[in-house]
């Protein structure tokens, strides 16, 4: 028997798979369904201060090796989200509240409200490549440090900072989050991308540019986690293109203590969480690892 339970700082997880933010996270019922499908934790859609309708469609299309989305942070707004969190909390896994804002000063109050709703941790989305305002925060160590510090002083639950790969030096940004008191780093958000349909000579996404996710970005994510692991001591969560157990093991060996899965649901359905766990266990048995912990960051040795 191998042991795949894990911890991300103070957060205890029955297994290392979490739902990534923005996939099925609008509704509490969907979050609950994902929790009951075997995810070790679920992350809400990124919620902002006001309801937001998002970008014009098409806003999510399948490409050859991944998905391209330009949803643009459509969300019901924090005031309408209490009921959804309450439903999600009926699953017996941690619910992590993701928040975003156009301005540094709004992160604290948003995070505090999420905490009041009952989430067990917070995830700060500083990294959406297709929403105005956030792009500036994403690449700026000072702003990241300010946001993290604001939120840390507003809430008691652990605060995880989610980073964008569309930056020059992701490790430096992770350090800024750590120094400001961040309890963990989530990497990565989508990779800035676009696609054109040649026969109609137009960009496919209504918003022209969006974010790439899925298998195509896994090597980018693994690289980022590897670099961040060398730069900080706080725990890491890997995200980007995880669809099977070996994908997860790559992230873990690069330094992650857990993984998030979004696009993987497209490739394997909601069973992906259970399947990834069984595949991690099979790998561990075959290679003589007893606890997941033993694999964390092992590729650095």
């Amino acid at each position: 028997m191998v042991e795949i339970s894990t911890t991300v700082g103070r957060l205890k997880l029955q297994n290392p798979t979490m739902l990534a933010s923005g996939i099925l996270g609008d509704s509490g019922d969907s979050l609950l369904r994902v929790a009951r499908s075997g995810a070790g934790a679920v992350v809400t859609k990124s919620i902002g201060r006001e309801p937001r309708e998002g970008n014009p469609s098409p806003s999510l299309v399948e490409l050859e090796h991944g998905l391209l989305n330009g949803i643009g942070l459509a969300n019901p707004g924090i005031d309408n989200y209490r009921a959804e969190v309450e439903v999600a909390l009926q699953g017996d896994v941690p619910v992590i509240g993701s928040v975003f804002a156009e301005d540094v000063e709004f992160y604290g109050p948003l995070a505090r409200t999420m905490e009041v709703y009952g989430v067990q941790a917070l995830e700060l989305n500083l990294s959406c490549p297709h929403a105005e305002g956030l792009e500036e925060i994403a690449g700026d160590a000072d702003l990241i440090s300010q946001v993290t510090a604001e939120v840390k002083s507003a809430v008691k639950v652990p605060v995880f900072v989610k980073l964008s790969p569309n930056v020059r030096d992701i490790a430096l940004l992770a350090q800024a989050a750590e120094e400001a008191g961040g309890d963990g780093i989530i990497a990565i958000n989508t990779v800035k991308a676009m696609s054109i349909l040649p026969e109609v000579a137009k960009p496919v996404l209504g918003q022209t540019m969006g974010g790439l996710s899925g298998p195509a970005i896994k090597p980018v994510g693994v690289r980022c986690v590897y670099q961040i692991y060398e730069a900080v001591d706080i725990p890491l969560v890997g995200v980007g293109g995880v669809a099977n157990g070996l994908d997860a093991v790559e992230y873990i060996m690069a330094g992650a203590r857990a993984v998030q899965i979004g696009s993987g649901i497209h490739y394997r359905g909601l069973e992906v969480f259970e399947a990834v766990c069984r595949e991690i266990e099979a790998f561990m048995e075959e290679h003589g690892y007893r606890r997941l912990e033993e694999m964390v960051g092992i590729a650095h040795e």
Partner: protein
Amino acid sequence: MPTSRLHSVILDKVMEEASHTKSFSFREEFPVRPGQFIMVWIPGVEEVPMALSQLGPVKAITAKNVGSSTEALHKFKEGDRIGVRGPYGNSFDLSQEHYLVAAGGTGIASVIAASEALAEAGKKVVTVFGAKTKEDLILLERSRKYGEVFIATDDGSVGYHGVVSDLALKLMEDRRFDGVLACGPEKMLQTLEGICRQRDVEIQVSMERFMRCGIGLCGSCSLDHYLVCRDGPIFKGEQLVGLRDFGHYRRDRAGRRVPM
């Protein structure tokens, strides 16, 4: 390339069905079952879900002009290109022998392929079609090829003066159907579900919710714990009983749960 990826097709024919409704056909071969839908992109405008009203080698959608995207689509002519991806969603279970097909307005577009498949399999189909007024009747000639058609109009300008669910109930009192297939306004679907539950007749309805991705990821189309694009659009009556949303709430573009 799988047709589930966004690609373009050339419009083969554009047919005027009624004052605000047109059918658009295109030639493309892909496996599809009655009840499934596609995402239709009007280049430069937006992308919207549409049922396939015709399967076979020539496919068609039948779209009512209700807003910006459908208005733009209505300007498209034969030879123009639209973007499509799909087919998505589940399909009608057509394993019984004798069906009542109940359609309200453009809802007929979602069920007519099922009528056709049933007729082709030698099964019996009776259609009840409801519209506001005579001018809104669509796809009638085709429906008549597959079986008897009864009409209800809100203003009594043709057929039964009243709502389609009342007409359906009258038919069900006279004849025995093994199953009901329905698409139309949600209140109508809710009424029909109640009627069928009482009479112990299996009902399948085609549901609509705001859709962004069509592939079960974005969560826009939530109906309680279901995703209409992936778990539906076809739901059995028993799946809908007891849902908080069915007949009462939908989600808007921002994901807010709002009363219908």
